[in-house]
């Protein structure tokens, strides 16, 4: 850490250095020895930017540090007993978790950061870094993530200058949305940045209205486990976090039709994880009160019912459970159309048998109550011999 004892370069200078280096990278696409040096320069500058952003350097190296809580914290002992649970608190990339980034402590660092941010906006540095991210070293990619997420968190009054920048320079968002087209290492990084961005409703709206949004259904079926599962997580964040926005999205019939067609394709796919994640997403959206349009459209189509019933009878208990969450809406719907009724009546005995045998979790009282309700509803259906 020797450079700490030298003069700390100003934010502007660092941004200028980075831009110069990126220009060099772009102009010597093949000159390997030169590129290596440039990439090393970029790493150095980025790590200095990280120091500005995170305030003090590496507080874990200090013996008597009063700011211990800057590192990942588990809040309660129960977090520890459940190892998986304890990690849910820091799902972002290690070292980059939002809550861990130290807040700047002095006025001079606040000054430095606002200078840094302005320079980034003016010179389009974020875009240029993201564009060249594959070329950067493994660790400086993480520094790019820190830079992006720190800038996202900046607020001036009730304005978020980085969001304004993104919306006026939407090619940055587009680049981020294409993350799953990269190798999984890069994808995870870019997708994490994108998911930070779409926490802001304005950016999320931009994404939902973009044609690129529909690519996520294709991305979710990629052969790479990392990319396909990650794409579904992004899809989930895009559709499940801003209720008003999604209601608006589903108020367009064309979006609704296209969504149902695409989510059904995912549910039909051969991959257990994709299947399970996509049925879960569907049930989450259908059961969201504000998505009334989606719900009525979905449960009034008999081919949707067939699809859900096929998954309801899958050997996998979890798929059964997730399908149940959708299936129950078909049955509970007071205005079932003829085709839906036909299918239910035709399978009345089998459904009753199936539901009575269906145990997921004895302690899940909501599930058990709903199951009883469904049994009651189906019992009230006419049996197939006397139906006309």
């Amino acid at each position: 850490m020797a450079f700490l004892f030298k003069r700390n370069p100003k934010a502007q200078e660092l941004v200028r250095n980075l831009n110069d280096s990126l220009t060099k990278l772009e102009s010597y696409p093949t000159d390997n020895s030169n590129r290596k040096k440039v990439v090393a320069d970029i790493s150095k500058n980025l790590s200095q930017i990280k120091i500005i952003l995170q305030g003090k350097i590496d507080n874990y190296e200090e013996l008597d540090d009063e700011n211990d809580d800057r590192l990942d914290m588990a809040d309660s002992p129960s977090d520890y007993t459940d190892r998986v649970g304890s990690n849910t608190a820091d799902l972002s990339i290690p070292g980059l978790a939002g809550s861990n980034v130290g807040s700047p402590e002095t006025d001079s660092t606040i000054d430095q950061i606002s200078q840094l941010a302005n320079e980034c906006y003016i010179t389009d540095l974020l875009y240029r870094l993201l564009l060249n991210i594959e070329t950067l070293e493994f660790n400086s990619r993480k520094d790019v993530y820190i830079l992006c997420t720190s800038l996202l968190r900046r607020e001036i009054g009730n304005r978020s200058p980085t969001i304004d920048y993104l919306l006026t320079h939407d090619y940055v968002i587009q680049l981020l949305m294409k993350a799953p087209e990269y190798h999984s290492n890069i994808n995870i990084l870019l997708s994490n940045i994108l998911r930070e961005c779409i926490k802001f409703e304005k950016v999320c709206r931009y994404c939902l209205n973009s044609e690129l949004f529909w690519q996520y259904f294709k991305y979710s079926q990629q052969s790479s486990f990392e990319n396909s599962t990650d794409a579904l997580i992004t899809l989930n964040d895009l559709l499940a976090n801003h209720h008003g926005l999604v209601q608006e999205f589903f108020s367009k019939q064309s979006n609704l039709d296209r969504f149902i067609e695409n989510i059904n394709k995912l549910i039909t796919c051969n991959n257990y994880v994709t299947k399970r994640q996509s049925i879960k997403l569907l049930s989450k959206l259908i059961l969201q009160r504000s998505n009334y349009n989606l719900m009525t459209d979905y449960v009034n189509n008999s081919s949707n019912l067939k699809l859900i019933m096929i998954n309801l009878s899958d050997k996998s208990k979890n798929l059964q459970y997730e399908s149940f969450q959708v299936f129950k809406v078909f049955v509970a719907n007071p205005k079932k159309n003829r085709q839906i009724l036909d299918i239910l009546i035709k399978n009345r005995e089998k459904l009753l048998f199936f539901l009575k045998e269906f145990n997921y979790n004895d302690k899940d009282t909501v599930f058990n109550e709903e199951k009883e309700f469904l049994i009651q509803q189906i019992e009230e259906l006419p049996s197939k011999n006397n139906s006309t």
Partner: protein
Amino acid sequence: MADDPLTYYELQSCVGKGNFGDVYKSINKVTHEVFAIKIINMEETEEDINILIQEINLLSQLRSPYFTNYVKTFVRGTTMWIVMEYCGGGSCSELLKYLGKLNEQCVALIIRDTLKGLEYLHSQRKIHRDVKAANILLTEKGEVKLADFGVSSQIGVTQVKRDTFVGTPFWMAPEIITCKNGYNEKVDIWSLGITTIELATGSPPLSENNPMKVLFDIPDLPAPLLKGDNYSCNIKAFVAACLQKNPKLRPSCNILSQTPFVTKIRRSTSLVPLILKKQEKMREKNITPRSRIPLEKLVNMTNGAREDYWQLSTIRTRGRNLSRSPMSPITGELSASNAMTEETTPELDMPSKKLQLGYSDYLKYVILYALDKVRSRASTEVTKLDVDTLKATMEEFEKRQPGISCALVEEIFFRVRDQRLFTVHESN
């Protein structure tokens, strides 16, 4: 569609069992490199699947020579296959189990490299939370690697029985248990101190007690110390530095790496002889952990869709006298059994002519041919995809059970003939 791990890797033997799944030694079919594959049955974990996925993503962003690094993940049936670096030397707790306590030079070597792994982890602002000998793995060359970070890396946990309870109380720092103000990465330093005692004496302090009782004792008892003339001042000082009840007083990894205990290791120290000795003992006792899912079952795993469970289609039931005609998912029309059978008749003729078909020909010329016809009549993409799945399934079953297509075709033919389900066309 998802890649099949068995295209790339060959499973060899189960080398360990963890809370979440078993670990298999496996070989990359192309490069012949050895990897550890941890197989988690997602039907059995109660965790939200997205949490598992994000844990894996997180793991993929960690890279250090002192870490069992992540390679790739696959999905096969309901299992997740996580490919990791392989540590052929087993874990340090295995060394203890077969060789008793270790000499101080070896302990220092293990602790030095574990510190490097921890230092990397802490620099990434992550806490390991479960440092202990069982989670320190060795390669066959004697390199030391820290494992078991997060859900997805229970790799190499070769203990056959593992405490499911809380993980491992003996190694737990007091502040985790009392948890007044949360805790930070210093909990790993405490555990490292306990691990040092474990390696030097053969077991962690208080291990003769019930783990549940220990949970209450650790915050109340004074910090354990390494005592006796058998141990050098350096190791005693190292342990004492780690095991301070006030986490703020515990040094960081960086400081600990500069203590004489880990800087003054004889150049000749190597873990390889220990590993060899341990392997010999294991061979004598003929120890191989049994996997939860038998290998054959893993290899022959299929997806669990039972599409014929409900009466959703007319294909099965056509020709029977049903009181009502159900909708056909294929044509989207009310079932028109006449039209359907007419088209399929030419193919049904084939076996009756006793063509000289090989087993695989029945698959190709009858089953797949027929399914292609069915597919071309599908009205929706969903149905087409389903038919594709069915085709793939048939192909797979033919591979697994050569002759199954032939038998199926014969049986269908006999059934159709005997039952005269298609009377109209039989008479033709």
